[in-house]
């Protein structure tokens, strides 16, 4: 009640406006100013200072966000920052509010986790480097929040750019590795291609409406064809989100960054692309069917190819990065379904699609950081991300293993965890869509349904591989006796995420109803009678989850009671009579995925490097064999870049370094202009 009264009075129409504005300008500006002190803090207290700052930022944005999310009727909350050059409105509506809360939680979890993760780097990195890292982390947080709150074109793009630059600094943390440096630069370039597309899109809008902001899109879309401009936005935001074929930066940048950064980048930063797409969709007014069809087709391809490429990876973090692409696909399927619902005037599809998509944004922002954090703990302990060299981690790090398993189960969309809830919403939407549209739409929906089912099955294949090979069995390389469970500071944020994952799975309605309100507000769909039809579904899903957990507890209890009285024996694994097996003879990840990789060979080519044994070589020498999956899109992109490079190299011949030549060029240029003018061509 108290919070409500404050924030209702912050609307521009209410009294006491000037005083409020002054105070708000300070609360918004304060973190910006305070963040610079990170650079000069003594290294002893720097981490705690950064943590406090992150908490402060999270709190001051979470209050209006909660307010906007829980009372969407009030309209958006608007704050102004005044200054000599003009005022800058920050707008928090329910959609931004939802994303702000998602962002804050993931960033906070990452911040808490980072203390333990960065500990080994304290010796190898200079204090200035660590300070810069913390500083960039805070700025990534600030810029993401700004992206969510700014609606004017230019400030939005500046915040978007800040987000790219600060995450670039974070990826660059281990810049002494040449590969990391290359990856980071690649990331920066791709982000700027995205920025460039967004600038064009906004400029097109400005040329027609005279204003460069999200709100002017409404008047643009009402008078122009919607699809082309939307496509431009979709491509611009899609690079950030990682839709295939715009994803090539993602599987490189995520593994290169430290784990807490990968968690935040994958969990929330790429969702800013989704936010942008949804935000633009709220302004579109026609062409819904074309737009929706484009999104849903691109998304299902993204989902399928993402998970297929994930299966053949050997690098644990790269595997997780490809899964981010898959999940972006699932989110996109939800959004596309909702958009088609708008075109068909079927509010049920709009609700199911967008609610499913947005809930999956929340879900992915939980289980993906969880997976990256636990994978990071494994990397910290074993110093390798290569799945083939790991194994048996569960004996050394049982809690981390359990948390990874929890993340794996929920990312596969299995009940009673959160991933299932959002996937069920999308499934129900697709099934309802089957009987709503015409024959082509029915076929499309069925194909999407098949791909969603396949994505689920493939995700299970992928995570049984990842979990089975990394955590189970025995260690495949020389065992390191010093490995211990990750420290408490790293486990606590993971447990916090784990609790939320189970909560969403067991009491889903608590989380679904605010999102339904967000969707209703976004497209002015009026009061949400729709919620009543969802209520029995998800209450029963929750009950089913509880029954399952209850049953498991009961059976375990009986099992324990019976086995206590019996004599249990322990011995080696059955080896078919062969007793000299070594850990290297275990099933490898490559072998596990081999049958699948063979089936999918046309789409997932592999690169093998080895030297064939010659015929006359009777006693072959030592040889090496390496096999790496190839991302076809990346090699296609490289081919294009190679072509451009050849062209540019030809042009570079003009650059002789000889001043006389340059003067000649200028002379030739003027001559050409003169001739053209003379011929009345120019």
């Amino acid at each position, binding site marked *: 009640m108290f919070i409500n009264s404050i924030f209702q009075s912050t609307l521009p129409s209410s009294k006491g406006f000037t005083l409020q504005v002054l105070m708000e300008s300070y609360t918004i500006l304060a973190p910006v100013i305070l963040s610079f002190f990170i650079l000069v803090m003594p290294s002893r207290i720097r981490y705690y200072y950064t943590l406090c700052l992150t908490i402060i930022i999270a709190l001051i944005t979470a209050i209006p966000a909660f307010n906007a999310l829980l009372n969407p009727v009030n309209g958006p909350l608007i704050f102004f920052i005044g200054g000599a050059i003009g005022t800058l409105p920050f707008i928090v509506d329910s959609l931004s509010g939802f994303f702000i809360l998602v962002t804050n939680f993931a960033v906070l979890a990452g911040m808490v986790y980072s203390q333990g993760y960065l500990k080994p780097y304290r010796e190898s990195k200079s204090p200035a480097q660590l300070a810069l890292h913390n500083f960039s982390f805070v700025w990534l947080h600030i810029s993401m929040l700004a992206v969510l709150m700014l609606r004017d074109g230019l400030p939005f793009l500046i915040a978007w750019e800040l987000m790219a630059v600060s995450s670039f600094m974070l990826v660059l943390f281990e810049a002494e590795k040449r590969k990391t440096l290359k990856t980071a630069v690649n990331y920066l370039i791709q982000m700027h291609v995205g920025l460039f597309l967004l600038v064009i899109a906004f400029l097109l809008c400005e040329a027609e409406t005279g204003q460069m902001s999200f709100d002017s899109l409404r008047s643009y879309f009402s008078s122009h064809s919607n699809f082309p401009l939307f496509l431009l936005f979709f491509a611009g935001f899609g690079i950030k989100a990682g839709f295939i074929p715009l994803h090539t930066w993602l599987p490189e940048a995520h593994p290169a960054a430290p784990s807490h950064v990968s968690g935040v980048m994958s969990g929330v930063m790429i969702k800013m692309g989704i936010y942008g797409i949804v935000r633009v969709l709220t302004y579109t007014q026609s062409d819904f069917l074309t737009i929706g069809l484009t999104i849903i087709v691109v998304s299902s391809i993204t989902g399928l190819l993402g998970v297929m490429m994930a299966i053949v990876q050997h690098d644990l973090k790269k595997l997780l990065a490809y899964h981010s692409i898959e999940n972006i696909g699932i989110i996109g399927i939800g959004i596309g379904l909702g958009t088609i619902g708008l075109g068909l005037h079927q509010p049920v599809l709009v609700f199911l699609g967008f609610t499913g998509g947005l809930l999956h944004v929340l879900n992915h922002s939980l289980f993906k950081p969880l997976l990256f954090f636990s994978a990071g703990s494994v990397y910290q302990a074993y110093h390798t991300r290569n799945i083939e060299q790991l194994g048996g981690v569960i004996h050394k790090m049982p809690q981390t293993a359990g948390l990874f398993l929890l993340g794996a189960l929920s990312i596969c969309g299995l009940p009673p965890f959160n991933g299932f809830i959002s996937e069920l919403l999308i*499934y*129900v939407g697709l099934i309802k869509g089957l009987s709503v549209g015409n024959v082509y739409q029915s076929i499309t929906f069925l194909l999407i349904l098949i791909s969603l089912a396949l994505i689920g099955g493939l995700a299970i294949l992928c*995570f049984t591989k990842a979990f089975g*090979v990394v955590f189970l069995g025995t260690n495949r390389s020389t065992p390191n006796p010093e490995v211990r469970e990750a420290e408490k500071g790293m486990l606590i944020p993971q447990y916090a995420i784990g609790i939320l994952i189970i909560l969403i799975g067991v009491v889903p309605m608590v989380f679904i109803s605010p999102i339904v309100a967000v969707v209703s507000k976004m497209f002015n769909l009026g009061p949400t009678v729709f919620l009543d039809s969802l209520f029995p579904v998800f209450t029963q899903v929750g009950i089913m989850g509880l029954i399952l957990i209850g049953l498991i507890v009961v*059976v375990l209890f009986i099992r324990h009671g019976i086995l206590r009285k019996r004599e249990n024996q322990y011995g080696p694994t059955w080896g078919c009579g062969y007793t000299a097996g070594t850990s290297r003879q275990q099933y490898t990840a490559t072998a596990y995925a081999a049958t699948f990789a063979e089936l999918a060979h046309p789409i997932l080519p592999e690169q093998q490097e080895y030297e064939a044994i010659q015929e006359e070589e009777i006693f072959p020498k030592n040889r090496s064999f390496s096999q790496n999956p190839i991302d076809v899109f990346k090699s296609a992109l490289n081919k294009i870049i190679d072509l451009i490079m050849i062209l540019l190299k030809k042009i570079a011949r003009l650059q002789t370094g000889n001043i006389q030549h340059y003067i000649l060029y200028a002379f030739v240029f003027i001559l050409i202009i003169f001739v053209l003018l003379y011929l009345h061509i120019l």
Partner: protein
Amino acid sequence: MGFVLVIAAALFFPGIIIRVKSLLSGRKGPGIMQPWRNILLLLRKGNVISTTTSYIFRLAPTIYLCTILCAILLLPFPGVPSLLGFEGDFVLFAYMLALGKFLFIISAMDTGSSFEGMGASREALYSMLAEPAFFILFGTLALLTGFSSMQPIFDSFQFAGHNSFILGFIAVYLLIQIAMIENSRMPIDDPKTHLELTMIHEVMILDHSGFDLALIHIGTALKFSMYGLLIANFLIPPQFPLIIRILLFFVVQVTMAVLIGLMESFRARKKLAKNPQFIVTLSSIGLVAFILVLLITFKMIG
């Protein structure tokens, strides 16, 4: 209702399959209840546990059984609604079984044995390939009936006129094949094979013993009669008196068990490399049904 009957049917289901197979191969064969006597025997034994394994290995059989029990809870009995029924409940049904499978696969990986890894890899791949067939089937039924929950789908399916005969035939065929894949039976896997390299399901439970092995066997028996119930829903009209429906249910279960026994006796296992093709064929049969329904609902012509 369905739950109790499924458990009752599971008591004799595996026994009938074994009996049919032994009669056809000219042996007398064990009694119908022999599989359950074996299970009772296992329940009384202690476990032999590999030292390589972790808590996953100990938890997995329990969770595997519980997911199957929960999946059965979701199924309606003809004319009697299930305990829990809601829009999209068949999605939960499929995913519940997938959860059990996930745990089952990683418990095989937990032993560190390459045999079991091999079985796990095959199991994961085949069930992934079989998943679309199930969803196409239910998507088709949802399109035909306009419902997205199992109980109303089955109820209105019975009244869909003579079109339901041909669709029912396809559905029953698909479900039997899916049940065979999910239970790792004949065309995909041979439960009687003696070579670890060619096994799928059997190799995954090599290291399980005693109580845990019993739980897995119970789960497998239940899975059969669970699919039997699903098929019974297509075949038994809900307007019949309850006694007749129950009788028909057992007739369906026995027929299915005999059918599986017959199929396993006269059919050789496919080459492992051919299995994916076979499983994908099921999805295409499902697609045929889907196009049929598009024709029936006049979407395609009108």
